[in-house]
C-alpha cells in the first residue's frame, strides 16, 4: 500500500486503482466508478451498478460494499457510496 507523509508521520493511503480492482473483483460484471475526492487517498466517491443488488435494501447493498472493501475501510476516512441494481434497466 502506498504511503504519504503528513507532519512527519507516514500514513497508508488507498490507491484508487486498488479500490476499483477490489470492487470489480467482488462484484463481477458490475459498473464501478471510483473518484478520489481530495487526491489524498482517504476520501472516495464510489458508485456501483450491479445485478447482485436486485431486491436488496439500500442498507444491505451498502453492507455488501463495506464487506468487499474489508481492511481498506480503516484507511478510508470518508466514503460516499451510491449503489444501484441493473435489474429492469436492460430495456
Amino acid at each position, binding site marked *: 500500500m502506498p504511503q504519504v507523509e503528513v507532519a512527519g508521520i507516514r500514513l497508508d493511503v488507498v490507491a484508487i486503482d486498488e479500490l476499483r480492482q477490489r470492487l470489480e473483483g467482488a462484484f463481477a460484471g458490475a459498473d464501478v466508478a471510483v473518484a478520489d475526492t481530495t487526491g489524498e487517498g482517504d476520501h472516495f466517491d464510489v458508485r456501483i451498478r450491479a445485478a447482485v443488488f436486485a431486491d436488496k435494501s*439500500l*442498507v444491505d447493498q*451498502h*453492507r455488501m460494499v*463495506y464487506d468487499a472493501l474489508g481492511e481498506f*475501510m480503516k484507511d478510508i476516512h*470518508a*466514503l*460516499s*457510496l*451510491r449503489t444501484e441494481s441493473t435489474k429492469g434497466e436492460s430495456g
Partner: protein
Amino acid sequence: MSSILDDIRHEVGESPVVVYMKGTPRFPMCGFSAATVEVLNEIGVPFKAIDVLAEGDKRDGVKQYTNWPTIPQLFVGGQFVGGCDIVREMHERGELAALIRAAVDGEASG
C-alpha cells in the same frame, strides 16, 4: 460493552427519530453528519441527536449495534435506516419523510 449496547437499544426506542452524529445539529463536526441533519431539518421533524464525539463509548457502540462502519447513523421507530448516503437517497425519492411520519404518528397514537 454489553451495557452500552443496551443503552443504545433503549435510546433508539425512546424517540421516533434518533441520529448518532459527530458534533451537534447546530454545530456538526463532519460533512456527512451536517448533510444528514440538513435532510431532517428539511423534513421538519423533531429528532434526538447523540454526539458521539461527546459520548465516546457510543462511537464504537453504535457501530457494533448496527454492524455498520460509519457515523452518522439514523434510526426511525427504533429501526436502523442507514448512513448519510442512504438518508439523502431516500429523501430524494420522498421515502424518508413518509417513513418518519409513519413512525411519529405511530408514537402519537400509541
